[in-house]
């Protein structure tokens, strides 16, 4: 009664969650393009994954730049005189640039048909791609004052989400090829299962945390955010595809496609909820 609290805007808006989603798929596809050099069954997705990954990197870069309130100053992040290496964003920007250069070189070798350099650059690109979900997760984890973000498993969760959403898109790309589909089904199943395990651990530790953690748990599990996080993210986007992929229906093309679409919807919802939910309590402090 009669309390006065000043409204504070959240630091990062939903566009950042879209960036997480796009860059996650980009990293996942790059990984599957690399894997195709070692698993012959994935050969049909090699070029498609590499091209789509590069296109999504361009989209992700534009999203990231447009999200800055001073978009033209993104060059400051590449200025060695300004770079602050205690910031995860500084490492992330270097990671994105080197990944982009390696991807371009890899695509060039793919077009040229140079197997030796193609294989080497696929490995370099996949290694740099691994850095993308790790840095985006670390970007949140570094903010130790925010519940959920401050759990050290967030980068691991983002890696699992990248593999899950990457294998979902690769499954759609491999439509019609049974060998590739069977292989991608396994990756989709196990990466989504890993996401489920990490989510259970995050929810558990959050619920047993201090008052900010408890309030964040309530925010994440009730009302609109609850519908997004629990409904779309966990039930529809994680549990349902796992059940579907384990069932005989999931071994068929239609089942895999459906599960892949659910995983994509779920991974987008999870990223949105994990970004926005933990910021809510802070706006009231």
């Amino acid at each position, binding site marked *: 009664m009669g309390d006065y*609290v000043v409204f504070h805007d959240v630091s990062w808006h939903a566009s950042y969650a879209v960036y997480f989603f796009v860059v996650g798929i980009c990293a996942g596809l790059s990984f599957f393009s690399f894997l195709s050099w070692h698993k012959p069954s994935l050969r049909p997705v090699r070029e498609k994954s590499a091209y789509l990954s590069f296109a999504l990197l361009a989209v992700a870069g534009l999203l990231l730049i447009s999200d800055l309130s001073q978009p033209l100053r993104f060059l400051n992040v590449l200025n060695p005189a300004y770079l602050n290496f205690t910031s995860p964003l500084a490492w992330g920007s270097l990671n994105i640039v080197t990944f982009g250069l390696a991807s371009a070189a890899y695509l060039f070798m793919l077009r040229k048909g140079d197997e030796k350099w193609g294989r080497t650059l696929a490995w370099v690109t996949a290694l740099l791609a691994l850095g993308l979900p790790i840095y985006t997760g670390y970007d949140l984890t*570094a903010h130790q004052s925010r519940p959920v973000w401050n759990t050290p498993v967030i980068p691991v969760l983002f890696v699992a989400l990248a593999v899950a959403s990457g294998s979902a898109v690769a499954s759609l790309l491999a439509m019609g090829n049974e060998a590739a589909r069977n292989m991608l089904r396994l990756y989709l199943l196990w990466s989504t299962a890993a996401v489920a395990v990490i989510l259970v651990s995050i929810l558990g530790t959050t619920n047993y945390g201090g*008052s900010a953690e408890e309030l964040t748990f309530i925010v994440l599990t009730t009302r609109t955010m609850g519908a997004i996080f629990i409904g779309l993210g966990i039930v529809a986007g994680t549990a349902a595809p796992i059940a579907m992929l384990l069932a005989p229906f999931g071994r068929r093309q239609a089942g895999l496609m459906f599960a892949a679409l659910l995983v994509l919807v779920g991974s987008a919802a999870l990223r949105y909820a994990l970004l926005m939910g933990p910021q809510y*309590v802070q706006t009231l402090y």
Partner: protein
Amino acid sequence: MSEELRTSPIETRGLAGKKRYAMVVDTRRCIGCMACQVACKAEYDTPLGVNRTWVPYKVVGTYPNVKKHFLPRLCNHCDDPPCVRACPVEATYKVEDGGFVLQRYERCIGCRSCMAACPYNARFMLPAHRTYTAITSVVDKCTFCFHRVTQGLVPACVQTCIGRSRVFGDINDPTSEVSYLVATNATQVLRPEQGTKPHVFYIAGDRSQMEFGRDAYQRREVMDQERRMFERNFKA
């Protein structure tokens, strides 16, 4: 602070030959006149919807025994500021002699990492359009009135405080008033568990305001008003 407790090289509390400015807020003396907030707005032409300093209050007790608790808020000019660590381009930095945490407007890219890193909501984004200045679309915050303090004045909020609730000075100087107040009163800082070592000390701060309360989940009408004002101002 003794040498052993200094965990990061950026910390200057207790460092010989260096000033370390701090503010003590005696909440028993605060009457909630908001003059500090107005003085700050006047000093910096801070736009509508955002504040460098603000004074939230909470009504506690049951009628007729009710009381308003005020908790003046501002940047805590932490000795180990997470915002400085988080900024990718060193647009935010700490002045070694004085401990001011300041912002380089011309370098800020507007990524809001510093806002996310601050446990105190002390930072805000300036709107894209302002009348009297070209400093727009970058992060801004309280500067402890760096421009006044370096000329021997106290910050605008301290100058105007009618109840002398806000006291400012060099905590590294054992003869200063802030050193005396911190040494002779039980003081609290906001969210000490974050390890930021804030340099705004509160005397008799109300716990329900200093920590996350369970009622934080209840949306208040005033929050909606504030949110509408913020959105209207920032769309303009």
